[in-house]
């Protein structure tokens, strides 16, 4: 059954009588040169095809990259009447871009604070330190983060802990009797950080708001609460 094969498989080790040693190939160096050239050519062609294929692959992999802000859109966050004046409430909305299989991960939570009749601040639940969900405690008027102990005042400004800034906010406006916010991507330092306008006040942190304020007047900060300091004051 395998006796023939047993003989054959030693053959490559024996002195070769293969076509390569035929007088034509051995004497004609042009044939060898041509084969070397064709070998190099085959590598070059494969490299070119590889590049050609790599282009759509890379484009595909970079698919999630979009110009800044294109993921965001204005969405309704409910009726104004849902948010009593002076309250801070947890609200939910469906992210504007989702896939059918996203399930509940397509939902987003945020805190809506209604300071007065037409003044709203909508905070992201994501801590400005590392994105954990902050929890609102109405009794002590604080947002506390369960991960590394960040704390924020009711107006979103930093109270204590590792965050370097106040809570992230969504731009908001009132449309008739509906509260609208601009949302769509996970709030992080990369898309929420912006240069502070001169005269900006803690809590008045939405870029649109502060610019609007600047144009209207150089308003004094409305009695800012005592912000905690890092200076040790005990002992």
């Amino acid at each position: 059954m395998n006796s023939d094969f047993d003989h054959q498989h030693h053959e490559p080790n024996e002195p070769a009588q293969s076509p390569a040693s035929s007088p034509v190939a051995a004497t004609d160096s042009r044939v060898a040169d041509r084969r070397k050239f064709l070998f190099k050519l085959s590598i070059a062609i494969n490299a070119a095809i590889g590049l050609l294929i790599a282009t759509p692959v890379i484009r595909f992999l970079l698919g999630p990259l979009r110009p800044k802000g294109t993921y965001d859109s204005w969405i309704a966050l409910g009726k104004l009447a849902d948010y009593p004046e002076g309250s801070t409430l947890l609200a939910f909305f469906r992210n504007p871009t989702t896939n059918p299989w996203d399930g509940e991960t397509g939902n987003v939570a945020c805190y809506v604070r209604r300071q007065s009749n037409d003044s709203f601040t909508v905070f992201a639940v994501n801590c400005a330190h590392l994105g954990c969900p902050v929890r609102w405690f109405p009794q002590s008027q604080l947002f506390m983060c369960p991960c590394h102990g960040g704390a924020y005042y009711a107006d979103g400004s930093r109270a204590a802990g590792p965050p370097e800034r106040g809570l992230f906010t969504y731009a908001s406006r009132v449309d008739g009797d509906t509260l609208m916010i601009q949302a769509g991507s996970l709030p992080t330092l990369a898309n929420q950080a912006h240069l502070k306008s001169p005269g900006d006040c803690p809590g008045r942190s939405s870029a649109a708001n502060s610019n609007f304020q600047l144009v209207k007047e150089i308003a004094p900060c409305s009695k800012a609460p005592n912000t905690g300091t890092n200076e040790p004051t005990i002992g």
Partner: protein
Amino acid sequence: MQQSSKHWYERTYDWIESRVQLADFVRESSAHPVPSKTASWWYVFGSASFVLLLLQVVTGILLATIYVPSAGQAWNSLQVLNHQLPLGWFLRAMHGWGSNFMVAVVLIHMMQVFIFGAYKFPRELTWLLGVCLLLMTLGMAFSGQILRFDQDAYWGLGIGASITSRMPIIGDQAVHLMLGGPIIAGATLSRFFALHVFVLPATMLAFAGLHVWLVLKLGINEWPTPGRLVRRETYLKEYHALTKRDGIPFVPQAIWKDAMFAAAIIFAVAFCAAVFGPFGPTGTPDPTITQTAPRPDFFFLWIYSALAYLPPSVETPLIFIAPVIGLGILFGLPFVAGLGEKSWYRRPVGVLALLVVAVGLATLTHLGTYAPWSPHMTAWTADEIPDHLVHGDTPLERQGALIFKAKQCHNCHSLGGLGGQRGPALDSVATHLTEDQIIRQVIQGGGNMPAYGAALSPPEVTALVAFLDTLHPPNQQPATDASRSIAETDKPAFKEPVESTKP
């Protein structure tokens, strides 16, 4: 024919062997001599890591027959595995415990290799591949934690995205690349699934194969002897002389310990899986549930702790520079210290560095298990104020104790060992803060404490401070302010200071 005298299985073997021609290679590899002293229990961790990798591949494939990599259904499919399929829970537990054991054994293997100087010439590349394998093992542990698509996984991704967002200039786009879209959702899970199931395992098997090939080609590292230095010119000759003089065949004289230990490790994984069960999943990955306190898995607790202690001003640079330095040291090690002494008796710097790193990681991990920097989010309703601290209090002071609870002070300050550890324990606060200082601290905050002036009415402050002023040991008087008596009596207090009267 002579074949007719052979059994059918011998003929089958011959038929295959005549084609694959692996017998000589296997025979040479298993009979190759290793220095007799390396047939040691110290040399079993590498093979155990590989066996654990194979175990993970097998249990992982079995889980993949059920698991649904969809953000909307992954959690449900884990519930089916845990509760409905016969022994689905056990396979999940095997995979989870296998992962923990694998990280641990890979780390032990690395420490052993470091302390035995095995990374030195000519085994530099073996070490580099090993560092890559360690990184991929950690990558598997992290991506596996994400596939367990629960609240910890969801917010773990949030932390990952937050760290990524701190990259200068490209932060925003890098976050979208990592998440596969603008938010943590289906695309995020799918790409980590592809990493965990295809990319990383395939790369790991290839790297591990090359790693073992190098061990075969270069020989196992000999037991270090003080004073026997590694020199580029003479090492190979000395090593071959050693294996000739003092060598024993790898099979069976050395391998039996590897096999024993592998069996013990697999049994330990199965034992832990059977006794302790699978990991999670915790709550559903619903971002609208903010009543959660996310924690990373055990082997990432040290990072979690480090991020709590980094000063904010250096946090972002350190997050990106420290890993580069760490990897630079690991990858550069065999090129900087690739020659010379191997014995730990003559490498005090190496031994000390290993100890410092090990103690540092262990300390951070231990801190991460109880996270003293985090408020206890439920302490204000769940933990009680010990009886003796309110016993005999006036109604006002008791009202203060209630305010201490109602305003979440207990979330950060402990009393009688209960409550948060974010701020100092207040059991004897009255002995080192005067009444005025307590009032100031409560209203204005400071020292990393929020100001409660806006959240407390004046009567509430009065009651709270009255309660806090009772918190001192019975044999120790509360702190008083000498100047207070001056202000009240309008003359210097030559005698003992008078404590201010309570309102």
